[in-house]
């Protein structure tokens, strides 16, 4: 029984880790988590947590579009670029907060921390933004295992968070306390706390675990039972309910209450990820009550499952153990022999898999399995071919370390693809600049010829002369200045007549002609005076139009001259930028490739270590099974009971 207590303690310890908030269901973005010990409910940078914002610059909306579409890398790139281009000034603080959050979700903890700290150091940051900055800083610190500092940051929030974030803040504080073994403080944090339904369930689970760990088993069991009896169709909560029932079942086993343990373990779904451990525990609960016949029911069910699971491997010893307890020695021996055979066969498969992993085939299979279906990779893995390199993927991918490692590998692969794409684009940019330079050089002589034909100064001078003439006419009310061509001819003709008449001054025979000339001039002067106002208005309008045309011509000319001068300068500046950035792309591509290779080796090491651990465990089981058979035969031959 003492041994069993140890088991229960150890299993409970595995489950008695805090649980925190969740990413949105199906979310594939990296989640900021502390080393995961149990179930986790930790939000990634939650789109729903962003405050509603009235878009004042479309570019900030574009960043939000990529963020909400969960393309965090693109969102961060655009945010950084638009920030440089000064598009985000109306949203500067929100953008900065988002930038920190994006770094956090990409796993760039240092940058995230620096961003939030910068926001907090700025005394002009509004209180609401400060609260969110404190909160996210707390998350960064939590994710990097700095639980003390995380708690201080989370407690610095002054109450301005939305309910979802506030719930997460509360749970993060409690989790941090639990990771530091401060269970009483965690209990004080969670006791009586009521948040939104999902969060409350996680809070109760954590409270239950903390109570058990603080040796307040009765209340702890009651709290876990509350979660274990949740009625829900939500897949996340169903999973939590299974965990609660499993933890409760093992805790009750530890407390010497096998019947109650069996009830809790029976509530775990038969097809969930906790099912195998629950079946194993259910058998132990029956066995603890002395009902080995009943214990065989869950253990035989477990016996028929996938041997990769440690609980299933265990059942290969548990079943014959129960038969032996029931004095069915023949069946016990048969099952022990079956166990040895199964362990041996599995060991050979593990060796094949290790060889396949060493040959580098694992990563191809792992990436193919989750490519394009990151949110549903577990489902996809179940349909993988039973090849040595992929047989243990499901098992490996369930491990935190391998998952994190694969995430980094995938990130490196996408970086490599990104750099490869830019490398091609940069080649095209260089070609484009070259083509533009050639086209510009080809058009230059004709452009220069045309530019040379235009004398802007002469146009200006002529326009100024016209303006001066008009102003003089207006000042002197010179109606003849605005005369039409016909009127000018009339005036010229009259001047000629006047000259002729002057030559015959004093000659009375010209008096009639003089009178006609006077009358004609009078009529002409009258007419010119009558249309003066109209003509002034027309002349002024024409002058304004001329001004506009001259301005356009001058602007276009200036533009053409500027383009003539600026195009080669601009092209040269762009060439410099292309030339400067090319080695960065190449250099990074080399480093990414090398790191990717190292990461691949690391993943292979993790996988091989894990499989070797499995093989060692199978070896030990195998030895125990052989020893049990030998002992049974020994006892039988010696006639011992």
């Amino acid at each position, binding site marked *: 029984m003492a041994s069993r207590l140890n088991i229960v303690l150890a299993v409970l310890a595995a489950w008695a880790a805090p649980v925190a908030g969740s990413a949105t269901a199906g979310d594939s973005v990296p989640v900021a988590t502390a080393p995961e010990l149990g179930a986790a409910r930790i939000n990634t940078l939650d789109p729903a947590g962003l405050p509603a914002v009235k878009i004042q610059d479309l570019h900030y909306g574009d960043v939000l579009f990529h963020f909400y579409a969960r393309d965090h890398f693109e969102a961060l790139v655009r945010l950084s670029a638009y920030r440089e281009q000064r598009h985000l000034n109306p949203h500067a603080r929100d953008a900065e907060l988002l930038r920190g959050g994006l770094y956090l979700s990409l796993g760039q903890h240092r940058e995230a921390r620096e961003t939030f700290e910068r926001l907090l150091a700025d005394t002009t940051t509004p209180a609401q933004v400060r609260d969110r900055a404190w909160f996210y800083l707390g998350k960064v610190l939590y994710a990097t295992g700095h639980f003390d500092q995380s708690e201080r940051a989370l407690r610095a929030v002054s109450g301005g968070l939305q309910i979802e974030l506030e719930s997460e803040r509360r749970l993060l504080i409690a989790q941090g306390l639990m990771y530091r073994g401060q269970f009483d403080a965690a209990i004080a944090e969670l006791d009586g706390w009521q948040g939104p339904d999902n969060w409350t369930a996680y809070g109760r689970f954590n409270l239950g675990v903390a109570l058990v760990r603080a040796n307040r088993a009765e209340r702890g069991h009651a709290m876990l039972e509350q979660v274990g009896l949740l009625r829900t169709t939500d897949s996340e909560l169903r999973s939590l309910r299974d965990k609660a029932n499993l933890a409760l079942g093992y805790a009750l086993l530890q407390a010497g209450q096998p019947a109650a343990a069996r009830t809790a373990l029976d509530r775990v779904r038969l097809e969930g990820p906790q099912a195998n451990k629950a079946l194993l525990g259910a058998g132990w609960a029956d066995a603890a009550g002395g009902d080995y016949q009943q214990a065989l029911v869950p253990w035989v069910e477990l016996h028929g499952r996938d041997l990769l699971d440690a609980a299933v491997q265990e059942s290969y010893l548990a079943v014959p153990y129960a038969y032996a307890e029931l004095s069915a020695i023949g069946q016990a021996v048969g099952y022990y022999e079956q166990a040895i055979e199964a362990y041996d066969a599995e060991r050979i498969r593990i060796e094949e898999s290790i060889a396949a992993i060493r040959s580098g085939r694992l990563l191809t299979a792992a990436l193919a399995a989750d490519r394009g279906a990151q949110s549903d990779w577990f489902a996809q893995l179940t349909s993988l071919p039973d090849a040595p390199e992929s047989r243990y993927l499901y098992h490996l991918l369930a491990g935190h370390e391998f998952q994190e490692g694969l995430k980094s590998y995938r990130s490196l692969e996408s970086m490599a693809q990104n750099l490869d794409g830019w490398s091609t684009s940069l080649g095209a940019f260089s070609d484009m600049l070259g083509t533009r330079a050639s086209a510009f050089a080809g058009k230059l002589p004709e452009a220069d010829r045309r530019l040379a034909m235009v004398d802007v100064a002469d146009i200006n001078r002529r326009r100024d002369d016209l303006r001066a003439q008009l102003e003089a006419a207006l000042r002197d009310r010179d109606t003849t200045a605005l005369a039409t061509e016909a009127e000018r001819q009339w005036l010229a003709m009259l001047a000629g007549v006047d000259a002729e008449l002057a030559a015959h001054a004093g000659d009375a025979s010209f008096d009639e002609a003089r009178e006609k000339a006077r009358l004609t001039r009078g009529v002409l002067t009258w007419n010119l005076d009558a249309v003066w106002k109209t003509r002034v208005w027309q002349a002024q309008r024409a002058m304004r139009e001329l001004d506009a045309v001259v301005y356009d011509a001058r602007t276009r000319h200036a533009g053409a001259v500027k383009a003539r001068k600026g195009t080669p300068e601009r092209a040269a500046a762009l060439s410099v930028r292309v030339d400067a950035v090319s080695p960065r792309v190449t250099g990074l591509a080399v480093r990414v490739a090398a790191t990717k290779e190292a990461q691949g080796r690391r993943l292979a090491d993790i996988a091989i270590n894990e499989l070797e651990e499995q093989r060692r465990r199978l070896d030990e089981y195998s030895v125990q099974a052989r020893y049990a058979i030998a*002992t049974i035969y020994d006892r039988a031959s010696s006639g011992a009971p």
Partner: protein
Amino acid sequence: MRAWIKATAVPAIMLLALATSRAEEQAEQPTPERSALDAEVQGLRREVVDLNRDLFMLEEDLLFPASTQIAVFVSMDVGTFFDLDSVQIRIDGKEVSNYLYTAREREALLRGGVQRIWLGNMKAGEHELVAFFTGQGTHERDYKRGTTLAIDKGVGAKYVELRISDRLRKLQPEFVVKVWE
């Protein structure tokens, strides 16, 4: 015999439990080599983000200089009466973009994201922009609506927002075009 079998079987189960604990311990305490590799991945990611930022701006400056640049954005407000499938944009009668939305992108628009659907160049002067919105209207009826905008392009970048909003009084979607300077 019974006692012995218990003695052999129980430690086996302990192994299971201890193995779980050990794995967790390893996850909590990364080796220096692993930490260095993680740090290298983080450093590279940071550099790749910075590089992408610079290249993003370089590409824009090269292909879409501010003097001729025009950017068209799509936004969505509420979306009760319209489920967006695609947006087609024509400039002066020529199709320049035909974008089909995924469920995730639709959700991003509904949450308040504004998509830069097209970035291009336009000479100074008068132009015509026509946008067609295709999707499902009320009662799951297929819906296609067009909207036209006369653009007077001057010197400097021009930003056009195509906004889909709900017209509550008529229980119909509304398509509004707004020009930002």
